């Protein structure tokens, strides 16, 4: 427990506190009056209002679109099911620079909607909502679908046998069992859309702004640190509240449900209705997820003879100090280091949280570990800059800064994946081993480790994929001689000319493929009782 607490204290709480204090403390005097000032501005209140209602709308829309998908992927057995599961997860780990660009190609001018019906959604709120569905589809499929696959279908069948209509049976039997997972998914989607940054920035145009976007603008463009600090505190409070509710539903969810092996609950679809449903879900996935990604791939292939890909290996001393292809190697190295850190910290935290004698304080830490997902990357990045610049913590010019920042985002995923599995380990096994004279380390190695091995690997895979895609904080600290893939993509997109644009598309495609492969490997390793993601 000490290590995770220290890690979060030093690499999260301290830098964030430092940058917030920098904004609110002028000449050694706290200016807390700024809070009322800032919140009193009509522009800021407008941002708060928009942030909240678009998150509510996005969450509702995501549930509406993704729940049928969660059901089909949980209960129907069809060829390519694993591939579909991996594909819908790709957007979730792709950096928003890439995804925003791809999505614009779908709903923007000349996109599919435009060609078919002459409808253009760019710079409307619809583009934002749809993109949020695209991003968070996987959260619902994995959280709700993961549990759904393990519910015993015989309970619902029994209700049918007793005369309930299919809908009544579902409403009375399955829905209550799914409730906690549904609540958890709803809150996660709400959290992600509440703090949405790239999507809103790219698709919303200058008229729409979420809290997160406003924090970025105030910090990075306008350099009004006190306004940024106030907004950071507001977001902090909101996210804290969301997480508190989340922690509560998660605990409820872990109440005993009779779970069965997912392989036993899935069956081939039968009859016209089931096939129609499957078809509809696959069509939605194709339209909403595959199509925007396919646009990226197609654009990357626009030059004859894979020209953009070949250009990636060229070292012309132009945009980068190294050939862009080296970003692939850099990204992999950083992501591996970040994964190692995230797994170490996350596993230790999960182990502490899973102990039955864990007190309220420790359980509160559970929610705290999720905070980095809800705090603006620019705040963390700027915080790193001013907080970690003196011995003994002079890390500012060290390569480790990038994996550390990425690990911050990876840890919550590790904890969420490991925790349910660890809690499911029968305590009596540990006690028996201890009684027989095993040391605590030996108990962990011989009892816990074999049981959680797969969960650990799944967690590692997720941390790896998330680290690969992390952009917000990385862009602040990545060094020019070793940019990561998302940073390289953003930089190439920032320059005019065909080759730069094409190389950005090619690098995005490579990033996408690497993420997809990592996720496919994960699919092979899925634990029986998987975590929330």
């Amino acid at each position: 427990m000490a290590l995770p607490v220290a890690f979060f204290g030093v690499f999260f709480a301290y830098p964030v506190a430092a940058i917030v204090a920098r904004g609110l403390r002028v000449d050694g005097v706290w200016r807390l009056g700024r809070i009322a000032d800032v919140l009193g501005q009509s522009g800021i209140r407008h941002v708060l209002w928009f942030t909240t209602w678009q998150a509510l709308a996005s969450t509702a829309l995501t549930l509406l679109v993704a729940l049928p998908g969660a059901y089909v992927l949980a209960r129907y057995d069809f060829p390519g099911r694993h591939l579909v599961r991996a594909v819908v997860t790709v957007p979730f780990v792709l950096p928003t620079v890439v995804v925003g660009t791809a999505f614009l190609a779908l709903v923007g001018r000349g996109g599919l909607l435009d060609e078919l019906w002459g409808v253009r959604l760019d710079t409307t709120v619809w583009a934002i909502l749809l993109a949020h569905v695209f991003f968070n589809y996987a959260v619902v499929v994995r959280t709700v679908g993961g549990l759904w696959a393990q519910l015993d279908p015989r309970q619902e069948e029994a209700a049918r046998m007793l005369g309930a209509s299919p809908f009544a049976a579902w409403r009375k039997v399955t829905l209550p069992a799914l409730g906690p997972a549904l609540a958890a998914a709803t809150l996660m989607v709400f959290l992600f859309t509440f703090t949405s940054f790239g999507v809103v920035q790219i698709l919303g145009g200058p008229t729409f702004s979420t809290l997160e976007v406003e924090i970025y603008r105030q910090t990075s463009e306008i350099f009004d640190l006190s306004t940024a600090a106030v907004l950071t505190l507001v977001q902090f409070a909101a996210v804290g509240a969301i997480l508190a509710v989340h922690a509560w539903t998660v605990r409820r969810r872990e109440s005993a449900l009779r779970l069965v092996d997912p392989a036993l609950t899935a069956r081939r679809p039968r009859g016209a209705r089931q096939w129609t449903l499957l078809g509809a879900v696959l069509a939605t996935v194709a339209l909403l997820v595959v199509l925007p990604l396919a646009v990226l791939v197609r654009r990357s292939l626009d030059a004859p003879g894979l020209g953009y890909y070949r250009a990636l290996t060229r070292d012309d001393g132009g945009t980068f100090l190294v050939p862009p292809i080296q970003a692939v190697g850099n990204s992999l190295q950083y992501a591996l280091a970040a994964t190692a850190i995230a797994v170490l910290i996350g596993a230790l935290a999960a182990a502490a949280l899973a102990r039955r004698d864990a007190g309220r304080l420790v359980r509160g830490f559970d929610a705290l570990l999720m905070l980095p997902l809800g705090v603006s990357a620019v705040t963390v990045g700027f915080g790193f800059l001013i907080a970690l610049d003196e011995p003994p913590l002079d890390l500012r010019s060290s390569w480790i800064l990038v994996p550390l920042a990425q690990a911050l985002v990876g840890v919550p995923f590790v904890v969420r994946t490991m925790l349910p599995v660890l809690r499911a380990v029968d305590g009596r096994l540990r006690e028996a081993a201890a009684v027989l004279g095993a040391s605590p380390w030996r108990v962990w190695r011989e009892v816990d480790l074999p049981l959680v091995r797969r969960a650990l690997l799944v967690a590692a895979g997720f941390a790896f994929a998330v680290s690969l895609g992390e952009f917000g904080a990385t862009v602040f600290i990545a060094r020019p001689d070793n940019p990561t893939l998302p940073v390289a993509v953003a930089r190439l997109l920032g320059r005019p000319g065909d080759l730069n644009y094409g190389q950005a598309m090619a690098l995005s495609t490579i990033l996408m493929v690497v993420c997809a492969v990592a996720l496919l490997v994960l699919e092979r390793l899925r634990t029986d009782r998987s975590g929330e993601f």
Partner: protein
Amino acid sequence: MQTKKLTALAVGIGLVTLSACGGSGGGAAADSKTVTLVSHDSWAVSKKVVADFEKRSGYTLKVLEDGDAGQAVNKAILTKDNPQGDVFFGVDNTLLSRALDNGLFQPYTAKGADTVEARYRADQDKHRVTPIDSGDICVNYDKAYFSAHKLTPPTSFDDLTKPAYKNLLVTENAATSSPGLGFLLGTAARYGDGGWPAYWKKLKANGVKVVDGWEQAYNEEFSGSAGGRKAKGDRPLVVSYASSPPAEVVYADPRPATAPTGVATGTCFRQTEYAGLLSNARNTAGGKALIDFLIGKEFQQDMPLNMFVYPVVEGAKVPAVFTEYGPQAGDPQTLAPDRIAAHRDQWVKTWTSLVLK
């Protein structure tokens, strides 16, 4: 067997973490043989030119690219007590006052400062910054569109409000984008304090579209750029740089005979970028040598094709591809840094309520 592998994994993780912690101090140590340049991520230079500098001066050049121009300046200000490097390059006239007022730089008069053309000089009484390059923010046009529609491309700010060019222009948010701000400043310089809001009202009535950043305006909305053609952009006029047409040529394979885009030469605003010795630089001698090098002929002549900007010293040659494809604006608008400093925030606020709301 399994257990052994896992133990190995655990040990491995530990080692990575340990080595990570151990390696942390090394990079930060002040090294009198290394000089560190902090810049924005448009920094680019030929390898040979860097090698020549290192050989002649005896210093190793380390470069730290720190986000876009605005971000890089803000980060430099935040870290000024313990700076990340010795020299900062890339603060332009729109942000210069923010850097100077925050005490980012210490005085140094570069060797060769007298070769810098007079019109680019700034901060002449204190010599805290040295001009390095200049570039113009101008409206670019899509040649194919205008020839297909038998329409003459616009040449001036006034033209942009004419009915013939209705719904053709896309520009960037002046509050968040440096070309967007430059274009606003251009109109403020052209029409004055009292006149520019009226001009923007006309521009708005004529269907100007505003997007957040340059990437989106140029790569998505503009019909003349490589990215915009693929994204089926439908705005044949965009606020970009005077150097964008040559970039469309240099980064095309094969190179076209003429640039697909042109510049409306009467719509330009001149930006000058400066470098300065950071206040708490560790290696001031190296920093001074680096600034001297940045206004030396070799670097100045290497710049255009790498960063797509123009040299500022007298007699520096501009590559043929530049003069051929990117005509330099005859008489760009410009504003003194202190005038920008005095009005920037208010102008941006007025502009936002006028154009975005």
